[in-house]
């Protein structure tokens, strides 16, 4: 509102012919949208384009300087060098695992929030789900490092049962990422389930279905697009992450680390850019695949 008013006052200073033009709603909307469109266009898509262009450049292996000549060497290396193939597949696997763990954890919580809890409890739970997002990412990752440490909390709770901490590694990374991204799965499923009219559940019961049957035949199929919508978040966030694996991942490496190391220590920006395009391409393929489920409509 404030912005609109300020914009209105600004229009007053423009000569009459210009004002008449601006009064036409198209021009006014266009003017309103200009800053965000510039942001999206230049800063966001422009940076992405720059990334692609950079990935097609090379590096002088002797001086380490970037050579602005077109080459597909970076992508060839990515595909042919074993270690990068392994890291790519490992990253995809962990992102998929994190997504599945989050979906399994989030669904009952979201279902309870949307259809069982009282309106008051519902609001409290939404806040509770969002609250971890207010805390610093690093704090949460280091908290997991403490939890998972030898003689840490998990270790001391599990040891009487003859179990122990999984230690630092890919499992710890999966757990930490699943914890970090859980709200991004709960909220879309919650929103999707909340949209379903109660009469659908009642109709299912009315037609003879018990709650298990209703869950399987009505709730799950109808919530599926919302689950896919949540998976877009958890999957893409996991694909790009490099901090959690640094903190709890032990010696394990993910694509994010490769990008980070090539930017920092190796100073091979073109190769880092090539690695960074992998998650982008994977996500584009994923989005195209899930488009048919209607998940994109429920984002």
């Amino acid at each position, binding site marked *: 509102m404030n912005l609109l008013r300020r914009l209105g006052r600004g229009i007053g200073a423009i000569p009459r012919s210009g004002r008449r033009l601006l009064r036409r709603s198209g021009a006014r909307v266009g003017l309103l949208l200009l800053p965000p469109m510039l942001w999206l266009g230049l800063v966001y898509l422009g940076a992405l384009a720059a990334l692609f262009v950079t990935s097609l450049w090379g590096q002088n292996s002797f001086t380490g300087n970037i050579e602005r000549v077109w080459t597909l060497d970076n992508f060839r290396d990515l595909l042919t060098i074993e270690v990068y193939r392994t890291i790519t597949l490992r990253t995809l696997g962990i992102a998929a695992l994190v997504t599945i763990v989050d979906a399994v954890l989030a669904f009952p919580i979201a279902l309870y929030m949307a259809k069982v809890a009282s309106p008051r409890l519902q609001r409290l739970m939404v806040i509770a789900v969002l609250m971890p997002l207010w805390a610093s990412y690093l704090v949460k990752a280091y908290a997991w490092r403490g939890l998972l440490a030898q003689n840490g909390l998990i270790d001391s709770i599990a040891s009487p049962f003859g179990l122990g901490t999984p230690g630092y590694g890919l499992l710890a990374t999966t757990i930490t990422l699943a914890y970090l991204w859980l709200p991004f799965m709960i909220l879309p499923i919650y929103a999707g389930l909340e949209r379903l*009219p109660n*009469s*659908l559940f*009642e*109709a*299912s*019961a*009315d*037609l*003879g*279905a*018990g709650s298990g*049957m209703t869950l399987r*035949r*009505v709730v799950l*199929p*109808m919530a599926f697009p919302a689950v896919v919508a949540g998976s877009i978040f958890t999957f893409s966030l996991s694909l790009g992450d490099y901090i959690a694996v640094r903190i709890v991942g032990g010696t394990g490496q993910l694509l994010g680390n490769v990008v980070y190391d090539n930017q920092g220590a190796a100073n091979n920006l073109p190769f880092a850019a090539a690695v960074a395009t992998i998650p982008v391409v994977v996500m584009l393929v994923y989005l195209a695949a899930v488009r048919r489920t209607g998940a994109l409509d429920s984002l």
Partner: protein
Amino acid sequence: MPTAISVRGLSKHFDEVRAVDGLDLDIADGEFFSMLGPSGSGKTTVLRLLAGFEQPTSGRIQLGDDDVTDLPPYARDVNTVFQDYAIFPHLSVRQNVEYGLRVKKVPRGERRRRAEESLATVRLEGYGERRPHQLSGGQRQRVALARALVNRPKVLLLDEPLGALDLKLRREMQIELKEIQREVGITFVFVTHDQEEALTMSDRIAVFNEGRIEQLATPVELYEQPSSAFVAGFVGTSNLLEGAVARALLGADGPFVIRPEKVQLVAPADGPAPDATTCVAEGVVREVVYLGATTHSVVELDAGAILTVSHQNSDRSIDAALERRDQRVVLTWRRDHLVSLGGSDPDSPVNRAASPEEETA
């Protein structure tokens, strides 16, 4: 006739609100039974209690010979047609109709056959493969009906199923629903706030007000012999005469009800003298409302009340009626067309209509 549903002392309180308050009700097998009332009168709550979506605060519900009060919805031999139809959007029309049979593990062949039959009953042959979003409102309504009927329930509960349809379609569906009910012979319990709809379709109607039944009667009784001012006002248009006006015109306090179409409007010179069978009242026409098939004249009586008079536009002399505005007229009606709501007056022209309890028995 055996009873399909028998309800005793049924109450449902939401915190302080008594949505249903000590209801006794018997619905006969094969009956088309309507629950009529304004919104918030408790009629939908009764339906939801019968379906099992709500648990009563007190009271028992019997379905046939079985007490179903504590049974969940899926264990009751009733099916519901929901106000918003509640068609499963992720299933085809056939899958929707088959849903009830499927969860009851009816074999595929029989499922198919019965679904086709049911779709034919609601005249949706060949729509099985359609998706719900490809259907019109009226067609969705039919799918909801077929989905409920296919289970051959003892009782079909309908929660204002025609509310979302336009007038023409609603009229068609009213007649069709009645036909379908006669054809399948299932007891229908129909909730509506539309008095015309209830009068058109029902064998009996229960008029609800504030969680209680005001009157339970056949459509004709309900219209001709309303038992309270509420029923008289809710079912059809009615003129209420009470207090000083009633005393001056009719010689008793009343209250009395006279339906607009029972009153004749004549020029002052043509007015008959009042006698034992005819009532006469003079007044001035304040408003003339042309309604197509009928014309309503609003007459302010010299005695003080305002009466609506309706007459069929059976000839084309509407102009004459329209010209009567602000003119003096005489209203006459037969004394036995008056309905007394007072009951206390022994000389009341018509005895009070039977109370709901007597009707139920």
